[in-house]
């Protein structure tokens, strides 16, 4: 063998016999197998490949050397454009998932117009790049056979429609069901959880969720001794397939979140800061972010970003920002504001740093945990530590060591016990937090970090710290 770097197959890429994704030397490639040759050729010749890339529907790719293929049977190797950070569908807010759903339908419409069709409709085939959803599975398209039903119908309903409907009609938190059901929310469960009115007042949900779930129950057993043959006998004219896709699109577009916020989404408007305090905090965060950027920092994690006031400051300081928040409504508001402004350098998503997304799927590695995806050059934690230390009972040294695992630089706000927001947290509980003092804070973080800068915020008892991890 040659001395080329070893190939490492992506743990989530094992289901599809037509190819897979792997890395060599950290670079992402996709092997396309000879068994997929005809579909791959049509994908190019039909103009679909270039049209999808041109329209920003599918991630761009460049041909790579066939020598890179790690397994026999390769027809081609391509190098897709890198996605800065992989997020999972259960980490998206309602509108992020909705935009991903509409993107999937758009890809199908473009494929349909060129005699091809999507083979699958997993939400994991969509990622966010430059603030917009984009398909990342270049092998998702095959030649459309005449008069066939739309194969990914069930997957689309389970991955997109069911969680969106539950968020819109029941509770915004129900997107979390996708964390338990990696392959999509079972339709019988969605049907049971949705309010009864959706059976009668929403034709789209009545059909694609409720009737669909009932049909699954009724027809799964009656396909006779040869279920495969029975399934092949289901045919559908092209006109009907287009009608179905059009109806799915109308159903998705018709879903909206009820117009009320949560505690967190309103939080940015009602902080305890005076105008002078806010201006002072913004100036210090800006200065500290610029100092880290000057030190070579590229990626910032704004943990507890809320609706993104300080994510924007970090972006302006030159960072590509991941804006994590525990509250779906804050992520939703942040995403919609970024979308409206065309901002491309900030990616908001739903994450709880005190209970980060675990590794899920096959072998617990198919979809990586939040900590395993850490790519931060700096963690910005503003008004965060008191929530972890007092709200979640995490000792300060443990907060420090987690931060040290996440990032070499840290911009962190210290909020004293006398602060009204901390007093609120302590109002309904016994104060068992004897180490929650400026000295305790500095001692805890000094074990993992060197404190480079300490800047009191005007008109408040709060202090901002810039730290660098000890090597």
């Amino acid at each position, binding site marked *: 063998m040659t001395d080329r770097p070893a190939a490492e197959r992506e743990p989530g890429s094992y289901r599809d016999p037509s190819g897979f994704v792997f890395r060599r030397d950290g670079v992402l490639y996709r092997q396309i197998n000879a068994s997929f040759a005809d579909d791959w050729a049509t994908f190019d010749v039909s103009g679909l490949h270039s*049209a999808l890339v041109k329209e920003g529907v599918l991630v761009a790719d460049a041909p790579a050397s066939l020598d890179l293929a790690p397994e026999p049977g390769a027809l081609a190797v391509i190098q897709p454009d890198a996605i800065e950070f992989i997020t999972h569908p259960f980490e998206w807010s309602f509108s992020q998932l909705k935009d991903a759903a509409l993107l999937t*339908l758009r890809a199908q419409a473009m494929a349909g117009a060129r005699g091809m069709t999507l083979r699958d409709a997993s939400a994991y085939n969509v990622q966010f790049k430059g603030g917009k959803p984009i398909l990342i599975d270049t092998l998702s398209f095959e030649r459309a056979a005449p008069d066939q039903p739309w194969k990914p119908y069930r997957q689309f309903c389970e991955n997109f429609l069911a969680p969106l409907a539950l968020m819109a009609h029941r509770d915004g938190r129900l997107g979390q069901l996708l964390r338990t059901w990696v392959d999509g929310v079972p339709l019988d469960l969605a049907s049971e959880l949705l309010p009864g009115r959706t059976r009668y007042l929403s034709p789209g949900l009545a059909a694609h969720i409720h009737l669909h779930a009932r*049909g*699954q129950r009724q027809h*799964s057993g009656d396909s006779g001794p040869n279920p495969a043959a029975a399934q092949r006998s*289901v045919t559908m004219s092209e006109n009907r397939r287009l009608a179905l896709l059009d109806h799915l699109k109308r159903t998705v577009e018709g879903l909206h979140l009820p117009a009320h916020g949560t505690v967190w989404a309103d939080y940015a408007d009602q902080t305890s800061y005076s105008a002078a305090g806010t201006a002072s905090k913004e100036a210090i965060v800006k200065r500290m972010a610029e100092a880290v950027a000057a030190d070579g920092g590229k990626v910032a994690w704004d943990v507890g970003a809320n609706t993104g006031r300080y994510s924007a400051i970090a972006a302006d300081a030159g960072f590509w920002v991941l804006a994590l928040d525990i509250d779906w409504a804050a992520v939703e508001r942040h995403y919609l504001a970024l979308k409206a402004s065309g901002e491309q350098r900030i990616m908001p998503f739903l994450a709880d740093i005190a209970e980060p997304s675990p590794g899920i799927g096959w072998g617990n590695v198919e979809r990586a945990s939040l900590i395993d995806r850490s790519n931060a050059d700096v963690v910005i934690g503003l008004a965060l530590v008191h929530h972890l230390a007092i709200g979640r009972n995490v000792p300060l040294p443990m907060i420090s060591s987690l931060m040290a695992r996440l990032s070499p630089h840290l911009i962190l706000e210290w909020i004293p016990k006398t602060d009204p927001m901390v007093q609120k947290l302590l109002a309904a509980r016994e104060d068992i937090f004897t180490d929650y003092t400026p000295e305790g804070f500095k001692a805890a973080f000094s074990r993992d970090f060197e404190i480079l800068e300490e800047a009191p915020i005007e008109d408040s008892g709060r202090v901002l710290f810039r730290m660098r991890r000890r090597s």
Partner: protein
Amino acid sequence: MHLVFLYIDPGAGSLVIQAIIAGLVSIPFFFRNAIRRTFGRFQSKPTDGASAATGSSAPEDKGAASTDSE
């Protein structure tokens, strides 16, 4: 959970029900397209890429180069 659930493939039911639902929704789809064909010249072209994608993908538009290029 009964063991039998492990052998039920909801995919089979999905295909059957998809055909039924497609049949139902193709009726209003047909009329909407007929109306659009008749009055289409009075309407402005859709500007949103997403709505253009399926909005103009009625059968008579199949293969039209403009289907999804905004």
